[in-house]
C-alpha cells in the first residue's frame, strides 16, 4: 500500500466530460515565470517528475534484500503501452536513415536535422495513431475542438530539438516528460503497484528517448540549447542525473520517504564520473553514468575543465541520496524557473495554465522586480524565504551598474535554489518527505517568492511581441543567440 501522502499525478476521470484545449504558449514575459510556478501545470510537472524519481530508488524486499533498478534489469516488466512507446521511438530513429546528414560544408549544426523534424511533424498523427490507443487519442472528439491527441502531439513535437536553430536542450526534454505525463493522465498506462509502471517508463521509455536524442545530437551535430558554457550541468539533458542518482540512493519500502543522503551499499563512489573505466562500466546500467558517458563520447579535454559542475558534484561525500535531492532542487531552479527554457512550453488542459488553487497568491513585488527593466531586489518582506535569507555572494551589489539585462543575476544561479517544497518543510513535515508527494493542500510550495532565475529577466523590455519559434530553448551554444530573441 502506498503511503497516502506520496502523491501521484491524478488520472482524469473517464466518466466526467473533459474539454481539451489546443496548447498555446503563455509565458511571454519573464514575469510570467512566476505565474507558471503557481500554475496547475507546474504542480503536475513536479509531481510527475517526483513520482518517476521515487520509482527509481532501490526497493527493500523480503529478508533484508534490496531490489535495484538497473537499465538492464530483468525485474522491470514493460507493459504494452511502454512497448508501444518504444516502437514509436524506434520509428523515429528509422527516420534518421531516411534523412542522412548533409555532407556540404556548413556550420556546426547539420541542416538535415531540419528535414528530420519536418518528416516527424508530417507523420506525427500517423505515428501517434499507430502507437497509442485510439480511445485515448480520440477523447474529446465528440466536441468540436481539440482532442487528447491535439494536446499530446504538441508535447511530442516539442521533444526533439529546434529544427530552426539546430539545437537541443532541457526544454525539449521537459516536453517529452510532459508527453508521457499526459499519457499517464489519460490513463494510458495500466494500473499496477506503486512505482511499477513508473520505473518501466523511466527505464523503458525515457532511457531510449535519451539514447535517441544522443543519436540525433551526434548525427546532426545539434548544438546545446540554453548553455552556460562549461558552467552548466550538462549541454543537453537533466533527467538522467535525477533518475540515475535515485538508482544509487539508499533503498526504500513502499511507505518510506525518499532518503536525502546516503547511498546504496554497492553503489560506485560519485567520484567515479571522472574515471573513464568506471564510467564505461556504469553507463550500461545507470542513467547518471549513461549521461556522463555521452559527455565522454563527445568532449575532449579534462573532465573537471569541461564539466566543472559535475566534477564538483562528484566530490559530494554525503552519498547519492544527497545528489538526488540536489538535482531536483537544481532542476526546479535551472530548468523550470528559467524563462528561456519554459517560455516555449505550451499549456492546454492536461498541463493547465490555470492557477493551482492550492498555490499561494503571486507576490506582486516579485513580479515587478523580476522584470528586465526593474532593479533587482532580493525580496525581503514576508516570511523569510530560503533564497532571500541565504548569504548570496554579490547579491545586492549589482543594481547600480545594471542596465536592462544586468540584473539577471541579482540572485546568482546558485541563489535560486529554493526548493518548491521549502515551505512544506517549515511546517513540520518530516525532513525526508519527497516534495511533491507530501504537499498537503495547505502547504504548497512558496513559489511566489522563488527568486527569479538568472535568465528570467533577459528578455528585452521593448520586444513586446514574442516571435514564434519552434524551439524549446532560449539559447544555442555554438552560435550565440541574443537572450532577448524569441
Amino acid at each position, binding site marked *: 500500500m502506498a503511503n497516502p501522502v506520496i502523491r501521484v499525478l491524478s488520472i482524469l476521470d473517464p466518466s466526467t466530460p473533459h474539454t481539451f484545449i489546443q496548447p498555446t504558449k503563455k509565458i511571454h514575459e519573464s514575469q510570467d515565470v512566476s505565474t507558471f510556478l503557481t500554475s496547475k501545470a507546474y504542480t503536475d510537472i513536479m509531481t510527475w517528475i517526483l513520482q518517476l524519481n521515487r520509482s527509481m530508488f532501490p526497493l527493500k524486499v523480503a529478508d533484508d534484500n534490496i531490489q535495484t533498478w538497473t537499465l538492464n534489469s530483468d525485474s522491470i516488466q514493460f507493459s504494452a503501452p511502454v512497448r508501444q512507446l518504444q516502437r514509436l521511438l524506434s520509428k523515429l530513429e528509422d527516420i534518421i536513415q531516411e534523412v542522412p546528414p548533409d555532407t556540404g560544408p556548413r*556550420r*556546426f549544426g547539420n541542416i538535415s536535422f531540419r528535414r528530420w523534424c519536418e518528416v516527424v511533424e508530417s507523420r506525427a498523427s500517423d505515428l501517434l495513431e499507430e502507437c497509442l490507443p485510439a480511445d485515448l487519442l480520440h477523447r474529446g472528439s465528440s466536441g468540436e475542438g481539440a482532442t487528447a491527441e491535439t494536446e499530446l502531439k504538441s508535447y511530442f513535437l516539442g521533444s526533439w530539438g529546434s529544427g*530552426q*536553430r539546430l539545437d537541443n536542450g532541457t526544454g525539449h526534454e521537459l516536453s517529452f516528460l510532459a508527453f508521457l505525463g499526459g499519457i499517464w493522465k489519460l490513463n494510458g498506462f495500466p494500473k499496477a503497484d506503486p512505482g511499477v509502471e513508473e520505473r518501466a517508463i523511466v527505464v523503458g521509455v525515457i532511457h531510449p528517448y535519451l539514447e535517441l536524442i544522443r543519436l540525433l545530437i551526434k548525427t546532426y551535430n545539434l548544438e*546545446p540549447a540554453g548553455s*552556460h*558554457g*562549461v*558552467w*552548466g550541468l550538462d*549541454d543537453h539533458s537533466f533527467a538522467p542525473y535525477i533518475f540515475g542518482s535515485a538508482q544509487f540512493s539508499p533503498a526504500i519500502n513502499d511507505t518510506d520517504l525518499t532518503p536525502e543522503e546516503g547511498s546504496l551499499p554497492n553503489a560506485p563512489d560519485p567520484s567515479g564520473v571522472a574515471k573513464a573505466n568506471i564510467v564505461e562500466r556504469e553507463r550500461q546500467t545507470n542513467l547518471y553514468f549513461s549521461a556522463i558517458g555521452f559527455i565522454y563520447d563527445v*568532449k*575532449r*579535454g*579534462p573532465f*573537471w*575543465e*569541461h564539466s*566543472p559542475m559535475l*566534477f*564538483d*558534484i562528484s*566530490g559530494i561525500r554525503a552519498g547519492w541520496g544527497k*545528489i538526488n535531492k*540536489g538535482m531536483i532542487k*537544481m532542476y526546479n531552479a535551472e530548468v523550470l524557473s528559467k524563462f528561456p527554457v519554459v517560455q516555449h512550453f505550451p499549456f492546454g488542459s492536461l498541463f493547465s495554465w490555470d492557477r493551482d488553487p492550492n498555490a499561494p497568491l503571486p507576490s506582486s513585488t516579485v513580479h515587478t522586480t523580476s522584470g528586465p527593466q526593474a532593479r533587482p531586489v532580493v525580496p525581503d518582506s514576508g516570511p523569510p524565504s*530560503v533564497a532571500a535569507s*541565504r*548569504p548570496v*555572494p*554579490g547579491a545586492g*551589489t*549589482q543594481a547600480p*551598474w*545594471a*542596465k*536592462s*539585462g*544586468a540584473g539577471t*543575476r541579482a540572485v*546568482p544561479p*546558485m*541563489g535560486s*535554489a529554493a*526548493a518548491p517544497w*521549502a515551505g512544506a518543510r517549515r511546517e513540520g513535515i518530516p*525532513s525526508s518527505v519527497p516534495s511533491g508527494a507530501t504537499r498537503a493542500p495547505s502547504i504548497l510550495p512558496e513559489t511566489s517568492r522563488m527568486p527569479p532565475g538568472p*535568465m528570467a529577466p*533577459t528578455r528585452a523590455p*521593448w520586444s513586446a511581441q514574442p516571435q514564434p519559434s519552434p524551439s524549446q530553448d532560449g*539559447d544555442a*551554444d*555554438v*552560435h*550565440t*543567440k*541574443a*537572450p*532577448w530573441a*524569441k
Partner: protein
Amino acid sequence: MSDLDRAIEQLRACRLIPESQVRELCYKARELLIEEGNVVSVDAPVTICGDIHGQFHDLMELFRVGGDVPDTNYLFMGDFVDRGFYSLESFLLLLCLKVRYPDRITLIRGNHESRQITTVYGFYDECIRKYGSANVWRYCCEVFDYLALGAIVLGASSELEPTSTTALSSMPIDDSELETEVLNSRGEVTMSTYRARQRSSSDASTDSRNISPPRDISAAPGQAAAPSRSGAPGTGASGDGNGSAVTSRTGAVLCVHGGLSPLIDSVDKIRLIDRKQEVPHEGAMCDLLWSDPDEIEGWGLSPRGAGFLFGGDIVKQFNHLNGLSLVARAHQLVMEGYKEMFDGGIVTVWSAPNYCYRCGNVAAILELGEDTSGGGTVARSNGEYGRSNGIVSNSRVVSPGRRYRVFEAAAQDTRGMPAKKPVADYFLVSFFPLLS
C-alpha cells in the same frame, strides 16, 4: 620587475591575480581605452585573431604559433570570455598585455563583452565561482564598455614573402605574387595561392591561380618564422589623414567582431557612435558586434535575434565606398579556422580550437605583412583613414597578402591540475538550514 610584469607572469601560468589588482588593472585599462577611437588604426604587420572564449591553454598555443607579445603585433576581435573554463585568466592576461604594451596589442569588443550576455553564457558564473563575488565581473564589464568597436589595418602588403622553409612554394611563377598561404602549427605550408602581379592597380585580383603544393612538406628546419614578424611598427611616412593620399595599392582592412550594419555605410559613421555603454539590443553598435555574412542578396534577419545577415553585394559596395580591400571578422565558428567569402571581400577568423571541447574544429590567426614597397602608412592613431568618404579612385584596391596559421587545441598535458572542488550550492545543507 613591475607589478604589471609580475601579474603577466602569474596569468601566463594560468594563476589568477588578487581582486585588488584586477581592480587596479581595469582602472588603468579604462584610462587607456578611453583614449582610443571607436575605430582604431593599426599598422601592418599585424596578426588578427578571432574568438577566444576562455580557452586559455589554446590562447597560449596561439601565442606559441603566432609569436609572443610584444614581438608580434596583435589584434583581437573580441569574444574573450564566456563558455570556456578560463575566461578570467584569458581576458585578464590580454588586458595586462594591453596595458603593458598598448601599441602592440589591440582589443576590440565582441558581443560577449556585455553584461547581459555574460550572465547567460558563463563568465558571470565563473567570476562568482573564482572570486566569490561579482566584483571582478563588474570591473571587467566596465572595461568592456570602453573597448573599441573596430580597427582599420593600414599599410598591409599585397604580396606575401613566401615562407622560407618551403622549397616548392617558393618556386617562382612568372609574374605572379603570393596572395595567400596557409601554415600549420609546425610552420609548414599546406596551401598557397598566387595571383598575377599587377604593376598598375587595375583589376588585379581577377586572374588568380591556385596552386596547392603537397601537404606536409617536410624538411622544415625548426620553426618557420613569419618573415615580417618583427618588423618595426609605423615605418614609412605618415599619411595626411585624408585617405586619398595613401599610396599603397593595398586597401585598408576593417576589423569588427560581427559584421556590417544597414545603418553604417561608411567607416566614419562608426566613429559617430557613443560606444561607452552596454551593447544595445539594436542599432549600429549592436549590428557591428552581432551581424553575420550569408549567401544572400542584401540584408536579412539574423536567426540570432540581434544584428543582421548581409550578402556579398553589401560587402562589395561597402568595401568599394570605403577604399577597403577586406573585412576581417570573427563571431562564427568555422571548422577550418578561417573562411573567406565573397571573392575574398570578407574573412571569418576563428581562434578557439575544438570549441566548447567538442566541435572538433581547428583555429586560425591571420597575419598581414607590412608593405615595404614605399607605400605610406600612418602611425597608430584613432583612425583618420577614410575620412574623405566618397572620394574613391577608379583604380581597384588590391587585397592584402594573407597568411593563415592554423592550429589545434593545446595538448591536455599542458594543463594544470584540477581546480579545487567547492560543492555546488544546490547540494549543500548549510545554506538551507530550514531543510536540514
